[in-house]
């Protein structure tokens, strides 16, 4: 059973969002990492890039597949977790502790379209 954390918001494409004021901290869910298998590479965007909701901001590669990362919110990328460049396995180890990007949101109302922990649990059943 994949781990889901109460209080986070979730996208249907298996990203999680933690809201910290105007900033959205974004990573992938435990379900995503377990479906992908051993992550071998994280393709990260550049800091200061502008991003639109549902656009891809990077990709995960594993021995099984490659999968695009879709941004659950619009805004400007204010931080990128560079640790993942050399240690992509951190996402397998703890997908919630190891965020991927932080986005300063341009439209916080977009958060309303995301799923609660309970709703996300339903879609991965």
């Amino acid at each position, binding site marked *: 059973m994949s781990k889901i954390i109460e209080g986070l918001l979730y996208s249907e494409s298996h990203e999680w969002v933690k809201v910290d004021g105007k900033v959205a901290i974004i990573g992938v869910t435990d379900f995503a990492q377990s*479906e992908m298998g051993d992550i071998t*590479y994280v393709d990260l965007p550049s800091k200061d890039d502008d991003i639109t909701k549902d656009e891809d901001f990077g990709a995960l*590669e594993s021995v099984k*597949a490659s999968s695009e990362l879709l941004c659950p919110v619009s805004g400007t990328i204010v931080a990128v977790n560079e640790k993942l460049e050399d240690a992509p*396995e951190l996402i397998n180890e703890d997908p919630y502790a190891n965020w991927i990007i932080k986005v300063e949101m341009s439209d916080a109302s977009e958060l309303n379209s995301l799923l609660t922990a309970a709703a996300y649990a339903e879609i991965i059943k």
Partner: protein
Amino acid sequence: MKYYDKLIFELGRKGRSGYSLPKSFASAPAVPENLARKTPLELPEVSEPDVVRHYTNLSQMNFGVDTGFYPLGSCTMKYNPKINEEVANHPLFTGLHPLQPRETVKGAIEMIEGLDKTLAEITGLKHFTFLPCAGAHGELAGLMLMREYHLARNDFARTKVIVPDSAHGTNPASAAVCGLEIVEVKSRADGLVDVEDLKPLLGAEIAGIMMTNPNTLGLFEREIGEIAKLVHDSGGLLYYDGANMNPLLGKVRPGDMGFDILHLNLHKTFSTPHGGGGPGSGPVGVAESVLPYLHIPVVSGFHGNYSVMMKAYAYILMLGRENIKMAGPLATLNANYIKESLKDCYKLPIPSICKHEFVFDGLINDGAHDDVPGATTLDIAKRLLDYGFHAPTIYFPLLFSQALMIEPTETESKETLDEFIAVMRKIAEEAAEDPNILRSAPHNTPVSRPDETTAARNPIVKA
């Protein structure tokens, strides 16, 4: 099997040789001083038995269709008749040079023209170019033709290509290399392209759609007629990925379905060795509308992988018009026989009758209990190696997380299929009893399970 990984240089001993040159060789005119090499050639000094044993041992470290059953989905690993090799190795062909004057190679050109005519008849298209050397090369060439078709009409807006989510990975990759943007169309629950999802995607920016029919789930896209009409009405073209052509041979023609451009994999459908066994050939055929953009003359300069073309032509002529029609039905029968015989042990997400291949989604009982994880599709594939079978295609298509894609082809006997089915059932039993047997497989191969994760994370790209 005896493990063998020596280099021929390790076998060399000073002064040993397996040949003697005639005396006249020594009196041959000397190489001019300025062209002669200054250091001795570093050749292995070995006897004839050394050489023969070395290469025989190395050849036994391989697995191919000559060794055993090779049910690799979407790869059509059918048996390669030896007469193909005999024809392609005929000295009247192997001695030719591509720059020979045209009038001295009329027979060789006739072969190309004959193959062109035959493939045009099989596919329902007008003409082929044989220059592309394999499938993805053909896709790129075909997409460039698609772009040329639009550009020649001053239609510069068509920069996107629609690709189904079940497509071979090469389709979006080729489109991206061609500078086209990829738009994905979804499959329905029954595994076919969702026509309702397709409709809103069509428009003035769409250059065309790339499809495989039957698709990678082995299902015939029954609505292809409607899809072709929708795409054509919106100004786009249809590209046919010929990787799955085998079940349609002599029965159904992509040209009649409405496809404008296609590539064939001679090395799959037309029985020439591939994978580690030989080069490919990915001829591209076009309908009348695209013909003006095909390179003219179609036969010119270097001719692609000529020997592969000869083998494919030999295959078609050996079978003949009537027998070639049997390839598809027999391949389909074999695939459905395996599917039906194993569906009580393996999850079958799309239960309908398949064509040449089908997809399981892992084991019904993977043996997971307490803290012991269950056996995955990767583990099943590795365990099959222990039993002397090549693994099926795994983790493709991406529609199912434990995809296991099996394509037996028409050249396998019922006995071979039954052996494979028995082994797959045994593997399912093993998983239910103790998934660790599978998780630690293979046990009997020269190389056990490579650490793919470390290899991908920290690749050593030079010695």
